[in-house]
């Protein structure tokens, strides 16, 4: 069997001499930083202050200036799901958490990463927030006056349009949850990836296509197409070049504001219920 070249070169080649040379793949072990015994126990107040300074530069944008959370989870907790020990915490800060919005850290060296980790651990020793209301009463508000299951899934129940809430108490703080109920336009959950950056995760989009007008939450978008999920949960896919209009309603949430629909006590109870939702760790 002769493999023919194209016109440029007249030579041809014997198939038998085309050796399939598959060099063995290098069985290199993952190039992780060396596992060093955690220096956190021996940190001084100065080390933690340095860690706080680094935290503010590299972490506060998502985790809040005080670690109270925002786009990223609240870190003022004794246990962190992805960091059962100090070495795991170092890894999380260094390499990120695959499949989530937590990127690795590019700048700090190993010593600096330990100091950030030490500061994060110190946040877990802060007293937890006091619940303003009764979680059990809040569950009843969730299921009745709030009507939340129409758009949220919690512990397997409900319809998924807005974010799933089964572990929202793990990820958010009281102030964020209260704001998302009384002024949902103010905060938008974000998705983060180190390549795609911070993207509004539940962005309201309104399109006008030749078939009609649609409003929904953006599921994905690139230069050629956009996919929406409407309030009924149905997915619509559009070629952007065929759209007559496309409006991205930044700063506007499809979630209703509950300030006038619920009493102050009901909101207190509801946020306390939501803070009790910690996924499998409840």
């Amino acid at each position, binding site marked *: 069997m002769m*493999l*023919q*070249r*194209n*016109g*440029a*070169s007249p*030579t*041809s*080649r*014997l198939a038998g*001499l*085309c*050796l*399939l*040379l*598959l*060099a*063995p*793949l*290098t*069985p*290199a*072990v*993952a*190039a*992780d930083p060396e596992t060093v015994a955690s220096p956190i126990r021996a940190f001084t107040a100065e080390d933690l202050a340095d860690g706080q300074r*680094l935290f503010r*530069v*590299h972490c506060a*944008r998502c985790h809040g200036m005080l670690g109270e959370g925002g786009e990223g989870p609240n870190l003022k907790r004794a246990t962190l799901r992805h960091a059962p020990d100090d070495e795991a915490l170092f890894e999380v800060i260094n390499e990120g958490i695959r499949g989530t919005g937590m990127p690795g850290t*590019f*700048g*700090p*060296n*190993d010593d600096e990463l330990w100091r950030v980790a030490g500061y994060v651990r110190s946040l877990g020793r802060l007293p937890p927030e006091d619940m303003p209301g009764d979680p059990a009463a809040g569950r009843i508000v969730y299921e009745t006056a709030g009507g939340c299951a129409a758009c949220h899934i919690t512990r397997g129940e409900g319809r998924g349009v807005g974010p799933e809430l089964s572990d929202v108490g793990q990820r958010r703080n009281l102030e964020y949850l209260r704001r998302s109920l009384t002024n949902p336009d103010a905060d938008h959950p*974000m*998705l*983060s990836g180190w*390549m*795609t*950056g*911070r*993207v*509004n995760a539940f*962005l309201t989009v309104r399109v006008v296509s030749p078939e009609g007008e649609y409003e929904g939450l953006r599921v994905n*978008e*690139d*230069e*050629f197409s956009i996919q929406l999920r409407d309030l009924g949960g149905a997915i619509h896919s559009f070629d952007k*070049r065929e759209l007559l209009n496309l409006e*991205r309603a*930044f700063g506007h949430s499809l979630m209703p504001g509950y300030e006038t629909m619920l009493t102050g006590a009901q909101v207190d109870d509801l946020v306390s219920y939501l803070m009790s939702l910690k996924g499998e760790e409840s």
Partner: protein
Amino acid sequence: MRLIGALFLSLLATWVSAAAVPYERLVAAGADGNWLTYSGSYRSERFLALDQVNRDNVGRLKVLWAYQMQPTDIAGAGLQETTPLVVDGIMYLTESPSSVSALDARTGRLLWHWAPELPEEVLHIGFPKVNRGVAILNDTLYVGTLDARLFALDAGTGAVRWETRVADNAVGFSLTLSPLALDGQIIVGVSGAEAGVRAFVDSYDAATGKRLWRTWTVPAPGEPGSETWGGESWQTGGGSTWLTGSFDPDLDTLYWMTGNPAPDWNGDLRPGDNLFTCSILALDPATGAMKWHFQFTPHDTHDWDANQIPVLVDGEFEGKPRKLVAVANRNAFYYLLDRETGEFLLGTPYSKQTWAAGLDGTGRPIVLPDTDPTEEGTLVWPSLQGAINWFSPSYNPDSGRLFIPNRRMGAIYYKADAEYEPGQPFLGGGEQALSGDDASGAVLAIDVMTGRQLWEFPLKAPPWSGVMATAGGLVFASSLEGSFFALDETTGRSLWNFNTGAHIRTNPMGFAVDGAQRIAITGGNTLFVFGLQ
């Protein structure tokens, strides 16, 4: 018997002369359906001089074959930035982190695969574990590795002809670029400024691997330019040379770009202009001596490496025929320089920038106050990733249009202390990019002689991939989200698009087999080759 003997000998001869790319073929590269060097030709136009695929039929373009990169156990590997070469029906590409594969360009079937033995821990401070491609000269491929070695491989089988250690990875040096093959010599540059290396451009004898010369991009005390470095900061000065340059055989000049000074965001430790960082160097290929230099960003504090593709352009500038080099720089300015003398001819922003009032008559930026990084953070456009980065622009010499893949993103720059420790990040701060929905991108078309923008095609996210213009009146481009598409080069309208299903982080290239035109791009870990059939 004699006939059989003659047949055997002729077959032996063809076996020996498997790949044949003498220097003369590289000089003439560009018009015969082969892709012989990283940027398509020594002029680095990344222009495909084939018109079989054109505005009228590109709508019928379809995938003819795909090749999925070999899986690897190496943590953090898998980002593909390769530009394959195609030589007489065989495709040579590199795979993350530093492997080489040869494929039958007709069917995509693997002919051979080579992977270097990399150490368990390889430093890659400031960049992912990538490789941008091989160079070919005669019948030998040249590839750089993440641990800063240069290998010469037999193009026919992947067998190692020689290897040499370019630098010490333990202090942060790596090779991620596609080497450049000149006459009997291989030019390489290094990465590592984020680890505070002192960088250089090297030339190696193509036959033996012996180093022929080394040109440091940061001068030692007493050398020209050393007065632009305060104290001992030159020792950790940076100035990485991590992207393939251009070559003018008539002027016998090699054009190479340099990166940021170290530490990136804290310029207090290195007072002065920090020559020759963030510059273009014109070198004598015989000796490495500097003929001239031009610095785009003196005393850079935003990590605006000038490691972009220097496109060699010939044409009339203000009525006179001139030999030029066109650079869309990371700092958001577009530059035209005379490539014989280094004279600054033109400089104009092509993307949003908030750090300079403009350029003076010598091309030096007029830096605005309060644009340096600070402890509290300073908002500046563009981000450290730049208005463009390593990926390629493309130039159509027939239409005079330069196509630029443009990133549009600002960032908050932070300044912090930096203490040098070998093999550790030496950065002096950080960046919070205003990314996601606060950022975007575009493919721009500009008039190469004036910098005037002709059209733009908007992109959802700032791109990490390059473009390629063709003689068929098309510009091929791709997006971070994974679309590979063709634009009409006159209007910028999209004529065809394909979703590869993963991030595209590399440049398109094209070639021909059996007279049929092909276009290739890698999305994620898959190389797609398109054609009309």
